[in-house]
């Protein structure tokens, strides 16, 4: 029992289940399968972005530019769709992933080749990418009537009881699990975050691993940009403003250590779902949506405190390991 409680994933599942049960006493129907599927669908984009963020965090980096990347790529895709309605959707999706991956590669290159700390790089590109979205659009909006029906409808189309958006998220979850646990890149990501010195001696190219993690995070942000724009049927400069913090929050809640090297795909997904349940429950139980920000703040702080407790090993620390500094920024 004690060991079961120490398992982050199981603990999160229990907490989420308790939350859903509690909310459904206030709002009957909250726990109905239909509503739960809605919540999952609503959280799909956060799940996808959190998985990209997780990969980056595993390598002891952080990507604060994901939301800005999403805004720029979403604007580019929406404008292309509005200007050339005849282009097939598949082309637009590939284009979104391509642009996103390219923007991610810029982050990765600066981190890899110039060894600039990731937080500085992505703070810079965060403002740059969002500024570029403004330059690209001239501050204008792309509205629903300018987008083609295919562009808008595909992610909503039901398939086997779930919208395609949900299925895309499920596919990405499986893909991320495969990449991180079954491919050399995944091992390298865990190694370069867990103990960089040992990773170098083991022949892992840390810089290259970080670069690839940023490219992956960017590509997922690009994919999410299409999903976001088509879901909300509008593209403007400020879409997803501040969403990068939600992705970090999802990771922290899911038990991914900000110091790198620790975390699982299931954790990130559950962390995102945790936030998704809260977000969907607030209006249902009559709490002002303005309270959401403070609640996620409290949740993040509690999750960090909890993580630190969980990561602390029993016993006394005699010497801290210099090779793996406990705090990184």
């Amino acid at each position, binding site marked *: 029992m004690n060991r079961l409680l120490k398992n982050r994933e199981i603990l999160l599942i229990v907490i989420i289940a308790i939350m859903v049960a509690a909310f459904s006493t206030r709002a009957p129907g909250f726990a109905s399968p239909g509503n739960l599927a809605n919540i999952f669908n609503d959280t799909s984009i956060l799940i996808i972005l959190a998985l990209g963020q997780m990969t980056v965090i595993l390598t002891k980096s952080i990507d604060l530019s994901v939301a800005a990347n999403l805004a720029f790529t979403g604007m580019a895709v929406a404008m292309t769709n509005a200007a050339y309605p005849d282009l097939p959707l598949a082309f637009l999706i590939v284009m979104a992933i391509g642009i996103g991956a390219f923007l991610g590669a810029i982050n990765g290159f*600066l981190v890899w080749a110039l060894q600039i*700390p990731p937080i*500085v790089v992505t703070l810079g590109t965060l403002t740059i990418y969002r500024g570029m979205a403004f330059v690209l659009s001239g501050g204008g909006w792309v509205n629903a009537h300018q987008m083609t029906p295919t562009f808008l409808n595909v992610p909503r189309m039901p398939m086997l009881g779930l919208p395609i958006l949900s299925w895309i998220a499920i596919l990405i979850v499986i893909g991320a699990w495969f990449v991180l646990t079954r491919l050399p890149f995944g091992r390298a990501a865990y190694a370069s975050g867990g103990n960089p010195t040992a990773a170098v001696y083991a022949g892992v190219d840390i810089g290259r691993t970080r670069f690839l993690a940023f490219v992956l995070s960017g590509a997922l942000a690009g994919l999410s940009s299409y999903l976001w724009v088509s879901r909300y049927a509008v593209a403007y400069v400020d879409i997803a403003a501040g969403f990068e913090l939600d992705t970090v929050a999802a990771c922290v809640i899911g038990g991914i250590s*900000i110091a790198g090297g620790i975390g699982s795909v299931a954790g990130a997904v559950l962390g995102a779902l945790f936030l998704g349940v809260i977000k969907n429950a607030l209006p249902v139980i009559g709490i002002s949506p*303005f309270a959401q920000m*403070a609640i*996620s*703040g409290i949740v*993040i702080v509690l999750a960090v405190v909890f993580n*630190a407790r969980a990561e602390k090993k029993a016993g006394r620390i005699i010497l801290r390991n210099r090779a793996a500094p406990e705090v990184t920024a």
Partner: protein
Amino acid sequence: MNDVATTKRVIPDRLGTKTSRMLASWEILLLGVAVLIFIFNSFASPYFLNAWNLSDATFNFTEKAMIAFAMALLVIAGEIDLSVAAIIALASTAMGAAAQAGIGTPGLVAIGICTGLVCGAFNGLLVAGLRLPSIVVTIGTMSLFRGISYIILGDQAYGKYPDSFAYFGQGYVAWVFSFEFVLFIVLAIAFAILLHATNFGRQIYVIGNNEFAARFSGIPVERVKFILFLLTGLMAGVASVCLTSRLGSTRPSIAQGWELEIVTMVVLGGVSILGGAGTIAGVVIAAFVMGLVTFGLGLLNVPGIVMSIFVGLLLIITIAVPIITRRIREMSR
């Protein structure tokens, strides 16, 4: 990102003369950039070279710079505080609520500053007391502090501040020198003394360079970090007083995104984001550089969000250039 295995520690054969070292220093380089921008601006816009316009331009950076001083100490000690802009919002909301209740100017200032101190103490407690990583803690408290503002204000705004309260953001001490600018100078001197001429300042550098060694040298690492967070909260409170007084109103979205600009200012000022190095002089010059860039672009009718592209580029380029030049120098050796 301290990859011990890949860091090279080279001890040069010759240190060079004192003047040559000074000329190559980051602060001098930055000063050169500031002068260039100044000259460029005065050619680009006929409205630039005017004492009152330049005085107005200082408002672009004085409030941010006040926080940047404290943030610089924090970054040198190897920590960071991303919640500063949210502290401004919360302090401003507290002052707004107090002003509606009819509290006078001295009370408002006290409330603003105390809110900042409480927020800073909360961050300090989490980071120094519980030994949590500051970057995630302050991302969390950033949502928390601003979230409380949103709960209190929603989509409303506070106005109606007493007339005498306007002095902090709109008053002038003498001629074109605003209260904020004078305060900025005073704080710059105070922080420079604190960092460069006191034991406490030395301790900050030691912690940033090698926390491990600092502990063994008997430096109260946790206490120093706590004080630094307290100081950062205090400066955010002071900045909030100035900003609220200048704008004359409070919305929960006040100072949105400032944390990035403040970190940019600190890093642009030559403070190492990895900790252990940096000067207040650098931050002061960086404040001027950023203020001049945004003001010059503003005179040229460049929209704010496009300016942020320049700020982002400035941040990355100023960090990348020394790295690239060092790389080239190493290769040609």
